[in-house]
């Protein structure tokens, strides 16, 4: 099994474009491939497929609840919390959980001597498994992580999505992880289990700035980086020199093309309609396979 994350520091460089089209090309080439949309805050890979069968797995998180009839306001739970998620003022008999800061580790209920802290389970998102029309026959699977409305931390949903993808994958299969943008927690949790990371970038100063951030994080994580330059033909050559200086191989350049953008906006895969784009993706696929196998 080879796990490949498709990431970028910057949003809008074409992670989803590359992921969905590469998934299709890999299926055409007879690979047993799974695409997992890990952008749980805003999953949209599904717009390019027409899934039929569906399994759902609920992602839960635990949050503490305080029983005020038992609490003596000793402050032990608040002092033990590494994230300052418990706000307690003993003098005023006040205790409050700050949801956003809680990581659900459970240390507060563990340290409480009065059994005043109970862990309650909350739904925070779901992981869906889709077997597309053709998917059933060729063994390919599409998986999506999606947060509940109002949930603030996508990390548990992302972790569950990656787990699901890995558990569905065959020994000889490939997992593509479409990562959320940026270079913070969501990104780190998506790429952390990948064997290779394809950084999708664009040859603009914005693309370069965020590519640097993402590649610095990945260097610390000791991940093997590869690059795809999307919207080539615009901007300048700085992205190329940067990739060269960091010894990050460029798998393919995808020229900026209005038709491909239109297909994308209609939820169509460019590789199915545009010969030139299909050829570029076949080059991407060939170069990728040479490096990962």
């Amino acid at each position, binding site marked *: 099994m080879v796990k490949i994350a498709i990431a970028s520091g910057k949003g809008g460089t074409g992670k989803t474009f590359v992921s969905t089209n590469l998934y299709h090309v890999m299926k055409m080439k007879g690979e047993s491939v799974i695409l997992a949309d890990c952008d749980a805050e805003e999953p949209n890979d599904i717009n390019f497929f027409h899934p039929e069968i569906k399994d759902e797995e609920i992602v839960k998180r635990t949050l503490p609840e305080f029983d005020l009839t038992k609490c003596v306001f000793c402050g032990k739970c608040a002092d033990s919390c*590494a994230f*300052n998620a418990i*706000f307690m*003022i003993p003098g*005023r008999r*006040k205790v409050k959980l700050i949801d956003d*800061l809680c990581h659900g580790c459970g240390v507060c209920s563990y340290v409480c001597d009065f059994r005043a802290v109970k862990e309650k389970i909350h739904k925070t998102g779901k992981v869906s498994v889709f077997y597309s029309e053709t998917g059933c026959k060729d063994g390919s699977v599409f998986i999506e992580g999606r947060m509940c409305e109002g949930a603030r931390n996508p990390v548990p949903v992302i972790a569950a999505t990656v787990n699901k993808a890995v558990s569905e994958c065959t020994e000889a299969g490939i997992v593509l992880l479409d990562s959320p943008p940026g270079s913070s927690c969501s990104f780190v949790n998506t790429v952390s289990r990948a064997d290779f990371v394809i950084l999708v970038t664009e040859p603009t100063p914005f693309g370069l700035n965020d590519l640097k951030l993402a590649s610095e994080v990945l260097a610390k994580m000791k991940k093997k980086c590869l690059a795809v330059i999307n919207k080539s033909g615009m901007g300048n050559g700085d992205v190329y020199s940067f990739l060269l200086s960091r010894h990050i191989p460029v798998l393919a350049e995808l020229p900026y093309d209005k038709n491909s953008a239109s297909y994308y906006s209609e939820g169509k895969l460019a590789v199915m309609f545009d010969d030139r784009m299909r050829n570029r993706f076949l080059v991407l696929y060939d170069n990728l396979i040479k490096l990962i196998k």
Partner: protein
Amino acid sequence: MITAISCSGNSMDSQVDTRFGRCPFFAIFDSESGKLRFEENPGKEAESGAGPAAVKFIASQGAQKIVSGEFGFKVKPLFDQLDIQMISIEGNKTVREIMELLKSN
């Protein structure tokens, strides 16, 4: 009336630090006795939750007012529940200037 002021140093001429949760010091000023002291912000380098930790600290000092620049969305409801008044100021002001404004009120 005790007022806390988030500030960048521990002297009367220190600037008000507009980052509430991560300011290095709090000036604690008692307008009745006229006494002023400086306390280090214990949560200034907290990995997360610096704001709520600072609210807790301010409350433990008996303050009823807090002067700072910006208050984050996690902090506001906590101050409201504790009936501590938040006063946002703009621009560069020193602790001395704030104290004078408080006295004149």
